[in-house]
């Protein structure tokens, strides 16, 4: 991708910018459609209708909200630490957006084919914590600070089970590169990692239950990393009003929202790459069967987005079903349940891969 645009323009900066536009558009679309879907899904689950006034079926609701947000006055309290206060939303958004650099949308549409892709994603998404802490501290609001503290503790803790499961996949596939992991699961859904990978044999069948446990753990812990219910304690509305962004409004608030939805898609993408074949189609490509080569990347992008959206929908479904945990229970879930299970899972997967 980058190489193509570099050849086209002959300028590294322009090529980089062009490549960066695709994930940005994706993040914006995810936020726009995501907020709309969140409202619709919650409405359907609660036997309501949901937004239906702005445009057909209320489709322009989030667009209208976004326009409203742009026009809003940037009202701030007088007692804030304005430098940190202004940087925080940018930093949070940067953290979630930078993760897209290594995520392969299709075999052609990939920002960086770095060999340490998954490692980079895990590392860069920790940047969000810094932003959240800044936001909480700089707002000079007790609720914000409590929210930020909770959030920092939560995100840092839940990186451990995530990393362990990623480690077990890395052990299993032998690579850190996200597009290589995807490429290993090509051709059919039976080759997905959750079904024990592409190699047929006894190990494949032995692997299935443990891969499934691994999937559950990484799904739960990434859910916690993006602060979604039942792990939305940093912004628990009935306790902390709105958590670390209580004092924000207008576009700065929208940046937090954008990064939340960006993060949701990013972790869904990671889960689908690690366990569900990434951008590869579960049933083979139309482009292959009718012999149109250029169609394949588009199909891959479609499957990738479809898988990402599927997990986003599951996240929404969970959000509107479950109550939220308490801060200490969140920690005990992580340290007493997820991490031990993840460790045992890691060891078993290691042994099975050795077989």
């Amino acid at each position, binding site marked *: 991708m980058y190489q193509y645009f570099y050849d086209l323009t002959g300028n590294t900066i322009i090529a980089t910018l062009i490549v960066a536009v695709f994930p940005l558009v994706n993040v914006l679309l995810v936020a726009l459609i995501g907020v709309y879907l969140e409202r619709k899904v919650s409405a359907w689950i609660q036997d309501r209708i949901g937004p239906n006034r702005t445009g057909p079926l209320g489709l322009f609701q989030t667009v209208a909200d976004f326009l409203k947000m742009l026009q809003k006055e940037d009202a701030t309290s007088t007692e804030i630490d304005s430098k940190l206060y202004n940087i925080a939303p940018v930093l949070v958004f940067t953290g979630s957006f930078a993760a897209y650099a290594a995520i392969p949308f299709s075999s052609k549409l990939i920002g960086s084919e770095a060999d340490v892709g998954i490692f980079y994603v895990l590392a860069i998404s920790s940047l969000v914590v810094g932003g959240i802490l800044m936001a909480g501290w700089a707002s000079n609001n007790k609720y914000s600070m409590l929210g930020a503290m909770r959030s920092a503790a939560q995100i840092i803790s839940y990186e451990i089970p995530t990393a362990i499961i990623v480690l077990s996949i890395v052990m299993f596939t032998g690579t850190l590169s996200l597009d290589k992991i995807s490429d290993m699961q090509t051709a059919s859904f039976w080759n997905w990692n959750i079904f024990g990978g592409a190699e047929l044999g006894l190990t494949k069948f032995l692997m299935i239950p443990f891969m499934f446990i691994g999937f559950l753990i990484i799904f739960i812990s990434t859910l916690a990393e993006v602060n979604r219910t039942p792990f939305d304690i940093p912004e628990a509305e*009935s306790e902390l009003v709105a958590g670390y962004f209580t004092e924000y409004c207008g576009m700065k608030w929208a940046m937090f929202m954008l990064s939340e939805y960006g993060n949701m898609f990013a972790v869904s993408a990671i889960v689908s790459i690690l366990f569900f074949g990434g951008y590869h189609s579960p049933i083979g490509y139309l482009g292959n069967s009718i012999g149109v080569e250029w169609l394949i990347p588009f199909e891959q992008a479609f499957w990738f987005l479809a898988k990402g959206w599927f997990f986003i929908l599951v996240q929404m479904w969970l959000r509107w*079903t*479950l*109550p*939220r*945990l*308490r801060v200490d*229970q969140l920690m005990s879930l992580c340290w007493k349940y997820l991490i031990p299970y993840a460790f045992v899972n890691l060891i078993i997967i290691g042994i099975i891969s050795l077989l």
Partner: protein
Amino acid sequence: MALKTEHMVLNMGPQHPSTHGVLRLELEIEGELVNKVTPHLGYLHRCFEKHAEAMQYNQVVPYTDRLDYLASIGNNFGYALAVEKLMGIQVPERVEYIRVIMAELQRIASHLVAIGSNGADIGALTPFLYLFRDREHILSIIEETCGARMLYNYIWIGGLSHDIHPDFVRKTKEFVNYFKPTIVELDNLLSFNKIFIERTANIGILPVDTAINFGASGPTLRGSGIKFDLRRDDPYSIYDRFDFEIPVGKGLMGTVGDCWDRYNVRIREMEQSLRIIEQAVDNIPEGDVQSAIPKRIKPPKGTVYKRVENPRGELGYFIISDGTVNPFRVKVRAPSFVNLEVLGELCKGNLVADIIAILGSIDIVLGEVDR
């Protein structure tokens, strides 16, 4: 060298999503740990008791609606019973039956809000909306009979404002049949959800002696395991004719008297209310509901205290009459106000998130706390 630390004071409310109206809690916290809770009341004070002194007896009834605005029928009921006792009025059978059915319907509606908002405070918004959907059925049944949805002014001294609507019996039966499965659904969706149990079981344990010492009543008291219900222990109206059980907290998920017990008592009470409604709705005798209403309400000199079991606990009216058309003094023993006192005791050493769960399980209505 030890670092000097101090406790943080966090003002929760009066504009806070889960203080159920305009209660202000002053929390003294140490990190997330709460050391002290001080409730500050009075943001909704409307001088009900002073107002009542300037009103004629029948004009006080609309004011009682506004005490516990989620259980207005119960408030009317208590006040009407108190004045009837003062004047020695015997109301017709039909009135008694309708009053009981209405009060039980209202109890279900009130508990639905209590349970729903308790769940919503903990983060489960969906059951909250399901319960409001079910409450809507009750409200429309009552609306059809008396024309109002919330502040009914329905139970008058000596009778009722309207006779029941011709569709009332049919619709009530329909509701009973509709509502039974939704209790099961609620149990599956929320009550036995592991996260909900974790959030409420063993939290805010109210020991029996503390509950009694603080004068708690209603589900707050019964959650601690005491079988005390005025409908059975001090039967008023015709409650002694019906067969129903009094659910108490048994510590099913944790310790007796925790938040989950108080929550569960409410659900089981709804089931018992359905039982009472089922028994009563078929036996409503014929008659005139307004025949016993006195032309001129002028009770003799004297005092009276009458208590009823409102959804939130013992609601008592103490009335002093000086023989004129206006009451000399009306004092309300509001269950929410008394139950709220327990909060300080329950919240010590819990986390901020638990305060919300405990407050939700005590189920206060600020209209009644501040009066």
